[in-house]
């Protein structure tokens, strides 16, 4: 019962957040300098079409109701600078690149982060630990666009090991994925390191060892399983990070994904696309956070869900 209440509460917060996001985005876009629907080289016919589509002649609260109504039907509107191109089609076009990039980065970050974190925790050599520690500090503190530029310069231009544009072959994936994954790897390895060291000191681990269980059973079943809880809890923010990180990576490596579309629309001041993509990306992240919040108490029963 408590579980159902918890899930309902989380869902309610998720919906409220989404509602705030849509409202704020809508009114902020209306606040933009000049009329966002006034361009230099847009014909009157197009303007009229837009005025009709967005109901610009209506009072603002009616426009808002109309916009939300359209959103609920899954219609994010059309591009203002490229008439006739719907934002949903832009998303559909960009989704494969962004998804494959994000997923590759997510999986490799999880894998590498856990391996490095465990290695750091079990290694007895001071040297290994301090090198890994410095690397993770480096990974956390260097902004990803700097990583992207440095990698491009060294591996793309000077050494010519990897191509610098597009996403055609597996080789193309290397640099963008590394750029996206550096920060998550460092963060996950820190989390795993901390929770692993803590789990190793637990009484049940001593108990398991005393029972004479095999080393690997203790390691995987007793320590690792508990040490991975914070990694699961952290998945929501991680997905949010990968999503916003794709803005940088896709525009630097010229990858035709949602992130690049967003950055382009920002530099072209294509307001309707900015509005649509902001709501889409925001909604996606809110959804991921919601799923993560619901999963957390299932993985870690110690979280009190009655709160």
């Amino acid at each position: 019962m408590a579980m159902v209440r918890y899930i309902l509460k989380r869902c309610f917060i998720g919906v409220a957040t989404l509602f705030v996001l849509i409202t704020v985005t809508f009114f902020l876009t209306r606040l933009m300098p000049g009329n966002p629907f006034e361009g230099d080289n847009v014909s009157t016919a197009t303007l009229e079409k837009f005025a009709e589509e967005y109901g610009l002649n209506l009072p603002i609260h009616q426009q808002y109701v109309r916009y939300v109504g359209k959103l609920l039907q899954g219609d994010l509107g059309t591009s203002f600078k490229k008439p006739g191109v719907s934002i949903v089609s832009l998303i559909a076009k960009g989704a494969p690149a962004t998804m494959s990039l994000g997923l590759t980065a997510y999986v490799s970050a999880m894998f590498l982060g856990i391996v490095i974190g465990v290695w750091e925790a079990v290694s007895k050599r001071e040297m290994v630990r301090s090198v890994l520690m410095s690397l993770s500090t480096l990974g956390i503190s260097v902004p990803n666009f700097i990583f992207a530029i440095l990698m491009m310069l060294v591996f793309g231009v000077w050494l010519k090991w990897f191509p610098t544009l597009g996403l055609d072959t597996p080789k193309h994936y290397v640099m963008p994925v590394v750029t996206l994954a550096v920060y998550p790897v460092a963060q996950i390895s820190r989390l795993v390191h901390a929770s692993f060291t803590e789990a190793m000191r637990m009484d049940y681990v001593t108990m398991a060892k005393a029972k004479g269980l095999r080393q690997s059973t203790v390691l995987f079943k007793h320590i690792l399983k508990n040490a991975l809880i914070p990694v699961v809890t952290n998945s929501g923010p991680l997905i949010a990070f990968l999503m916003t990180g794709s803005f940088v990576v896709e525009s630097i490596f010229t990858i035709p994904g949602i992130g690049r579309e967003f950055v382009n629309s920002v530099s072209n001041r294509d307001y309707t696309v900015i509005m649509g993509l902001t709501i889409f990306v925001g909604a996606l992240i809110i959804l991921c956070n919601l799923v993560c919040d619901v999963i957390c108490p299932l993985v870690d029963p110690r979280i009190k869900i009655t709160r």
Partner: protein
Amino acid sequence: MDLKTLFLPLDVSQKNDEFIAMESKSFAKDVWQRFCRNRRALFGFVLLSCIVLLAVFGAMASPYTYDGQDTAIRNLPPHAQHWFGTDKFGRDIFTRVLYGVRMSLLIGFVSTAVNFLVGLVYGGVAGYCGGYADMLMMRVCDILYAIPAMLYIILIMLIFGSHVGSILIGICLSGWVGVARIVRAQVLSLKEREYALAAYVLGSSRRRIFFKHLLANSMGALLVTVTLMIPQAIFMEAFLSFIGIGISAPMASLGTLAQDAKTYFQVYPTQILFPIGMICLIIFSLSFISKGLEEAFDPRNRR
């Protein structure tokens, strides 16, 4: 026998000879000493101080201005007159980098200060009041926290234009949520402690308990977070400038400099390496300081 020869008066300095205790230190002094013993933290602190001094005074001492153009000396590599070379308009990159550092540090420190104060008050009030007020205030935080900051900072930049003010507004809009959550958690647990009760029993006013006992004691945990917020703000500004909606030319920020040099970075790599190297130095020094503070504030490290 005379008593005076049997019992000699003891010198005052020997009075507490057998009293075993640490030298009494104030908390701040103690933290500071531990911080100084940590070589890495001290290195970060010295590095950051050098960068700040260089940014403040170096830019004044430089013979060039940040927007002075000279078409005769375009795209020069680093040499004696122009330490970091010149850009495509013949502007001195060293001077521009110094101005960029100023801008980045300004944004980092100002936004962090604002976020710190707002978060302190908001979290403190939520934690101290408790009950429905707390619930309501924390739900607001949840909602603000769930939307990635970058999305509405971009919207705000587009509305208010590309200058420092709008970046600051954008970063401060939700940056305080993290601070507020920490303060609330601290205050919630601290107000149940005996010393808070003792202060109440002794008749301290609510305000005094709130400021002197609850907020003052949650400072340690906060300072660490706050030192990490500065690089985040610097990074946010650099990123916004980098995608072309941050500080606009001819004003310089480290992000704009990187953005300017991006187009030709395959031909003139030094133009982009200097600004991004500077961002890295600032961020490293701050993360060393933060790590050092974290260790210094941990009472288990007390010696």
